[in-house]
């Protein structure tokens, strides 16, 4: 089992959203989204509740008509084609298995609508049951299955028609935490095995990062950033994304010096300015910016670092030993809190104690400058 499926080479665009928007009674749920889904990728729409990700998915499925913009499938606008004529299939959050039909009938339902012959339907159903390892449950009713088994049947049903685009609505939403981890990887395996292009919606950043090739972070109906899980985590483009994905320490400061090779930012109350070893894009000039540093990229020491840049002084306010790693909350000189995680790779006593005065520092390449 491979963990990451990095798409090789440039792929072609399968579905393109052009200035897609949707409003309900004056409330804008999705505003002017431009997005491209590439052949064979898993794309995750990630965002908090009410960010418009579900509305976007429902527009793709055809359950909601866009208020504006276009949905292009291979260059053709399908925005006003009803769901039953779209070559897209969805796995619902609640799975929406027909309770009056057996597993077999559920999977065959979509195929029957295409007026396929009985032998063809039987063949595909068997193939799908095998794909999701549910051959033994062919004649069961959904009520006789566990949550995980229902999800497998729902997946088989949505794959049976070989859709051009597979839509997953909170695929792990109805599973307990233990099953989630296993199913995330297995789901990716099955999707990659079939080779279907997939758009999923989730509020769980871990799930998005585990499953998706690319992530689109949404807030207030807009897509803020699109990128690989790595890019989104390491190079967030705005404060919202930095804060939404993982933990982050944000320093608000002003640009002191800006050169193509480095940037120096002054942060009030931080002992030393922040030095970043690469240039940044932006309007130029002294302007307020944010600097994000991930907790695991920070170091703690009892002695004052002798570097010219990138350190500050604080007092340990709170610490939590979590086995693998420890989390420290450090109160900085300006009263703000900074979070630091340290892996407990050495078997020893906690070297730092509550109320201890410490210095924290980081490398010049650990920081990301956030303009928005």
């Amino acid at each position: 089992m491979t963990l990451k499926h990095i798409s090789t080479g440039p792929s072609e665009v399968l579905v393109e959203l052009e200035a897609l928007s949707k409003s309900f009674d004056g409330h804008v749920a999705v505003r002017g989204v431009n997005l491209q889904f590439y052949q064979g990728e898993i794309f995750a729409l990630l965002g908090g509740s009410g960010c418009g990700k579900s509305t976007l998915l429902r527009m793709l499925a055809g359950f909601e008509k866009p208020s504006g913009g276009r949905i292009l499938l291979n260059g053709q606008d399908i925005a006003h084609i009803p769901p039953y004529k779209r070559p897209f299939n969805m796995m619902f959050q609640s799975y929406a298995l027909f309770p009056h039909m057996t597993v077999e009938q559920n999977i065959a339902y979509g195929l029957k609508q295409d007026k396929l012959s009985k032998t063809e339907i039987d063949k595909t159903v068997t193939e799908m049951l095998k794909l999701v390892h549910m051959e033994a449950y062919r004649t069961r009713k959904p009520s006789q299955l566990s949550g995980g088994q229902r999800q497998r049947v729902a997946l088989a049903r949505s794959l049976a028609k070989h859709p051009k685009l597979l839509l997953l609505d909170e695929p792990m939403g109805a599973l307990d935490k233990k099953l989630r981890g296993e199913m995330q990887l297995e789901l990716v395996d099955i999707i990659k095995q079939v080779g279907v292009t997939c758009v999923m919606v989730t509020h769980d950043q871990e799930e998005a990062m585990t499953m998706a090739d690319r992530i689109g972070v949404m807030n207030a109906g807009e897509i803020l950033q699109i990128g690989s899980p790595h890019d989104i985590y390491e190079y967030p483009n705005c404060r919202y994304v930095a804060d939404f994905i993982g933990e982050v320490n944000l320093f608000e400061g002003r640009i002191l010096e800006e050169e193509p090779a480095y940037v120096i930012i002054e942060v009030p109350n931080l002992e030393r300015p922040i030095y970043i070893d690469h240039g940044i894009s932006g309007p130029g000039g002294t302007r307020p910016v944010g600097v994000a540093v991930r907790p695991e990229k920070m170091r703690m020491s009892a002695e004052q670092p002798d570097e010219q840049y990138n350190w500050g002084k604080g007092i340990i306010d709170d610490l939590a030993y979590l086995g693998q790693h420890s989390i420290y909350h450090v109160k900085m000189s300006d009263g703000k809190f900074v979070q630091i995680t340290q892996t407990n790779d050495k078997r020893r006593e906690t070297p730092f104690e509550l109320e201890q005065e410490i210095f924290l520092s980081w490398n010049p390449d650990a920081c990301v400058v956030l303009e928005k």
Partner: protein
Amino acid sequence: MKLPEPKHPFWQRLSALPFLQGRNGVIALPYLWLLLFFLVPFIIVLKISFAETEIAIPPYTDLMTVEDGHVQIDLNFNNYGYLFSDDLYLKSYLSSIRIALVSTFICLLVGYPMALAISRAKPSTRNVLLLLVILPSWTSFLIRIYAWIGILKPNGYINNALMGMGLIDEPIIMLHTDFAVYVGIVYAYLPFMILPLYANMMKLDHSLVEASADLGASPIRTLFSVIVPLTKAGILAGCMLVFIPAVGEFVIPELLGGPETLMIGKILWQEFFNNRDWPVASAVAIIMLMILILPIMWFDRVQNKQQEA
């Protein structure tokens, strides 16, 4: 539930009975109700149906007579025999069932789309629509049926309107025909079809309808392969609520039907009030009950099967 601590020895012994303990005590209440208001009257009617007419008060003989110190029970089956000897009764039963079946079917055809539309409406509109369904029953049933006389009679609203538009030269005879009876029954019992259907449809998970569309089923296909099968309980309940009272309907055929409209409710009335033949009237009622119990038992079995699945 525990019965309160009894004082009197009778209550002590009663509450000590195993079938009145805990859960059983709760279940016993509806059974007690049925016993008092269904079984006892039923036994009285059954008793009368085996008696003979007599000019007396009440106008039938006693089943039990005490003669020479021993009790004698006379069961008279002639009333039932009489029902089968005169084909008026058989025809009336069949005609009642036919009228009730057709009316139920029309109610379903009209009520199903209405219930579906109400269940799909916005919550604010939904309440108004529901109110509109229930509102007519706030007026007296009798007055509403009388109103139909005014609408259907030869110089009523429909005929006047059609003649005024020049579509017909002579009034169409609608009142005092079977057609008027159908109109009356469908009109009067439609809410009893719509309400259980609506209640059932509200429980239907809308994502199932979306899933069906997503898998390529047109709205019509979705209706017949997903919505209808999943609202079977509502359909059955609605049909029962219309069919059962419609079979025994008396007011509607009396007011809107013609002399050739045969319905068992009318026969019952005539036997009871015009002929003062209580035993035959009771026999008519018992047979009608038997006819109605069959579909109820079938309904019960289907429901049990559904719960098992």
